[in-house]
C-alpha cells in the first residue's frame, strides 16, 4: 500500500506526541480523554477534508470559517422560526436543507469564479469570507441565537453519543472521511483532481473537464463547511454569528501538516486526518499540561513549520 507508506512518518509523529503527552499528563491516554480529543477535532477535520480537495487542485478556500458561522445561523434561524414546522422532523429537514443550500450557493460561486475568471482563489474566497461573515451578522443583530431544548435531534448532532459511547460528531466525521476518501482515492473524479493539481494544462489536453471538476470541488468544500457549522452550532447550544474565526487557517494547517502540497497535485485524505489529529493532540495536550495559551500558539506555529519542512525535504 503506497498511500499507507506515505503517511507512515506522520503516523509515527502522531504516536510520538501521544506517548509524550501520555507521560507528561496524567490520564491523557484514558479512552474517555481520547474520545473527547477526537470529538474536539471533528469540526476542524471536516473543514480540512474539504480544504484538502481545494488545495489539491492548486486552490485555497478562506471562506469556510465564515461560511460555517453563516450556515449555523441560517439553520438555527429556520429551526426556531416555527414557520417551517417547528420542532418536528419537517422543521429540521427544512433547516438543514436551507443551511446546505446556502453552502452550495457559496461554493458554486467560489468555484465558478475560480474556474471561469482569472481572479486568484485567494482573493475570491477572501472576499466571500467577508460576504459570508456579514450575512451571518445580519441575523439577530449579530447576537447569539439560543437553541431551545425541544430540538433534541439537532442538539444531538453535536452532543449525542452513539450507543451511549461514541460521540455523534466523531461518527459524522469518520463517515465523511470515508466518503471523501473514496471520492478522492477510488473514483475518476479523484484522479481528475490529481491531474488538474499536477498540471492543469496537461489535464485539459487529456480531455478532463476542468470547469466542472473545479466547481464541484468548491461546492464539496462548502458543503463540508456547512455540515461542520451545524455540528459546531449544536455543540455550542446556540448559533453564534461571530463563531468560526480563524477556523479556515486551522483547517489549512491540518492539511499541510498532513503532507498535502500547497502548490497542488499531491496529498491524501489519510494525511489530512492525521494532520488534524496531530493538531488536536497538541491543543489538548498543551492545555491539560497547563501551558499558557500564548506559548501554545508558538508551539503550534513551530510544529507546522517543522512538519512542512520535513515533508518538503522528503520529496
Amino acid at each position, binding site marked *: 500500500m*503506497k498511500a499507507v507508506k506515505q503517511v507512515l512518518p506522520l503516523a509515527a509523529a502522531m504516536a510520538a506526541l501521544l506517548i509524550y503527552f501520555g507521560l507528561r499528563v496524567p490520564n491523557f491516554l484514558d479512552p474517555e480523554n481520547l474520545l473527547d480529543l477526537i470529538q474536539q477535532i471533528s469540526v476542524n477535520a471536516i473543514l480540512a477534508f474539504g480544504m484538502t480537495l481545494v488545495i489539491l487542485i492548486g486552490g485555497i478556500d478562506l471562506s469556510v470559517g465564515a461560511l460555517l458561522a453563516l450556515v449555523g445561523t441560517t439553520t438555527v434561524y429556520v429551526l426556531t422560526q416555527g414557520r417551517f414546522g417547528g420542532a418536528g422532523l419537517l422543521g429540521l429537514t427544512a433547516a438543514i436543507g436551507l443551511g446546505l443550500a446556502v453552502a452550495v450557493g457559496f461554493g458554486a460561486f467560489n468555484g465558478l469564479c475560480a474556474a471561469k475568471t482569472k481572479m486568484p482563489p485567494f482573493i475570491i474566497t477572501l472576499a466571500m469570507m467577508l460576504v459570508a461573515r456579514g450575512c451571518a451578522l445580519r441575523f439577530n443583530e449579530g447576537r447569539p441565537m439560543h437553541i431551545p431544548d425541544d430540538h433534541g435531534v439537532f442538539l444531538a448532532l453535536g452532543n449525542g453519543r452513539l450507543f451511549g459511547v461514541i460521540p455523534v460528531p466523531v461518527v459524522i466525521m469518520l463517515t465523511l472521511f470515508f466518503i471523501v476518501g*473514496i*471520492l478522492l482515492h*477510488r*473514483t*475518476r473524479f479523484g*484522479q*481528475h483532481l*490529481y*491531474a488538474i493539481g*499536477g*498540471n492543469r*494544462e*496537461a*489535464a*485539459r*489536453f*487529456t*480531455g478532463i*473537464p476542468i470547469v466542472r471538476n473545479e466547481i464541484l470541488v468548491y461546492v464539496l468544500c462548502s458543503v463540508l463547511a456547512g455540515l461542520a457549522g451545524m455540528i459546531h452550532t449544536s455543540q455550542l447550544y446556540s448559533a453564534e454569528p461571530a463563531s468560526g474565526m480563524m477556523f479556515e487557517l486551522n483547517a489549512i494547517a491540518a492539511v499541510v501538516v498532513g503532507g498535502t502540497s500547497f502548490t497542488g*497535485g*499531491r496529498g491524501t485524505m489519510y494525511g489530512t486526518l492525521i494532520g488534524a489529529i496531530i493538531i488536536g493532540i497538541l491543543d489538548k495536550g498543551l492545555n491539560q499540561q497547563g501551558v499558557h495559551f500564548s506559548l501554545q500558539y508558538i508551539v503550534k506555529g513551530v510544529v507546522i513549520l517543522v512538519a512542512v519542512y520535513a515533508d518538503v525535504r522528503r*520529496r
Partner: protein
Amino acid sequence: MVRPVGTETELLTFEGVTKRFGGVTALDAVDFGLRKGEIHALLGENGAGKSTLIKVLGGIHVRDSGTIRIEGRQARIRSVGDANRYGIRIIHQELSLAPNLSIAENIYLGRERQGLAGLRRRKMRGDAEALVEKLGLHEIVAVDTVVSQLSVAHQQLVEIARALSCDARILVLDEPTSSLSEKETEALFDTLNRLRSQDVGIIYISHRLEEVMRLADRITILRDGRSVGTEFVDKMNQREVIRRMVGHDIKDHFHRPICQSRAVALKVRGLSSSMVQGVSFDLHYGEVLGLAGLVGSGRTELARALFGIDAVGGGEVWVDDELVSIKNPLDALDAGIVLVPEDRKGQGLVMFQSVGFNLALPWLTHWIRGCFPSRRRRQGIIDRAIRNFSIKAADTDASIEYLSGGNQQKVLVGRWMERRPKVLILDEPTRGVDVGAREEMFSIIAGLVETGTAVLLISSDLAEVVNSSHRVALYRDGRIVNTVKACEISEEEIMVQLTGAQDQ
C-alpha cells in the same frame, strides 16, 4: 577548404575529468579542449554526459577527479561564482530573464550600478546599448523594451549580451535553436561567428546535426559518459557522427511510411480561429500529412483549434464523412482526434506523478467503474503501452520526471493508443529528443500509419517533414498556401515558398 581553427591556444582543457552520482558514472575520464576563437560542438545522445560536463564547467557540480585548466593554469571551480570569475557563462535552454524588466535592466540584473543617488540608470542604459550594438540587436529594438515583448530569439540575444557584459571568455549554449525559426537561427549564427572572431571560445550543444556541421569548427562526441573523440568538422559527415553517437549504424534516418491511398479520415473546410484563417484540407487513413510552416505561422493554433482547445470562429470539420462539432478536447477525443502537444512538460505530462498515472490517465473510464478502480485493468493499460512502444521505464510507479525526453515523448504518444484514434496530430514530436529516440519516434509513426491511422505532423525540422510525410502542406500566416507530394519537393523549395521569397 580547411578553416584555421581559432588561435591554436588552448583556452580550456579537461583532463580525465570524472563525475559520479551514487553508483552511476556520468563522466568517465573525459578529455576535452576548447581554443580561443573556436566554436566547439558537444554532441551525444540524451544521457551521454553533455549536461554533466557543462554543469561541472559551470560550477553546479564539482568533479570527483581530473583537472580543469584555463589558459594552461589549473582552475578551481567549486561554485557558480568561481566559474563566473573565470569568465565562464552558460546559456541554458530555459532562459533565465526577468520578463517584466527591460533589456538593459536584465543585462545588469544582480549587478546593478548604484551611485549615491540610487540606481545609475543612464549609465546602465548606455553600457547596455553598446553591448547590444555588438550583437546587432539594437537595429531591431530599444534597450528599454520590456523583455516579455521580445521573441524567444531576441531574448536569447539578451542572454548573450548579459554574458558578454561580464566579460565572458567561454560561452556555453545549450540547445539554443530548439525554439527558433530558420531566420532567427541564421541571425544567431551571425552573432556567434562575430563572437568567434573576437576570440571568445564557444561550446555549442545541439541535436540538430545539420546546423552543427555548418557552424562548428570541431566536434566532440560523448557516449555513455566517455569521449569518443574530437574531430574537425571538415573531416566528418553526418552519418559518421550519428554512428559514433549511437555506437552502431542507423539503417535509415527516417522510415517513410508506405502509402496506402484510402478513405478520407479528416476533412477540414474553411476552419478559422484567432490565428487560423480559413484552412481546408483532406487527410486520408494511412497517410502522413506534414504541415510545414515557420514558427509563429499559426501551425500550433491549427492543431489547437482542431482539438477544441481554442475557440473556433468558423468552418467545418468532418470525421469519416460525418460533421462533428468540436468545442472542447472531449468532443475531439469522442470524434477520434488526438493531439500530442508541443510542450511536453507544460501541456503533456503531469510531472510529479508516476509513469503509470500518466499512461492510465486518458482511460479512467476503462479502469474505474464508480468507486471501484481495477488495479488489474490499470496495469493492463500501462503494460500494453510500455510493451507496444518500448518505453524504457524501470518502475512504472516511479515519477515520470526520471524518464529521458524520448521516453517521455513515447509515453505521450503511446498512452493514446489503448484504443486507436482515427486522427493523430503530432506537434513537434521530436523537439529536444536525441537521434536514437527520434528514429524510434518515426518508426512508431510508420507503424501506426501502416495500420491505418491518419497523422497530421507538425515540425520545424523541414528534413523531418519531407522525409516522413506523404504530402506536405505549406502553411503561412494561418493559411495553407500549397499542398504537394513530399517526393516532389525539396527542403529548399519549401523554404522559398514559406518565406515568400518567390514573391519578390
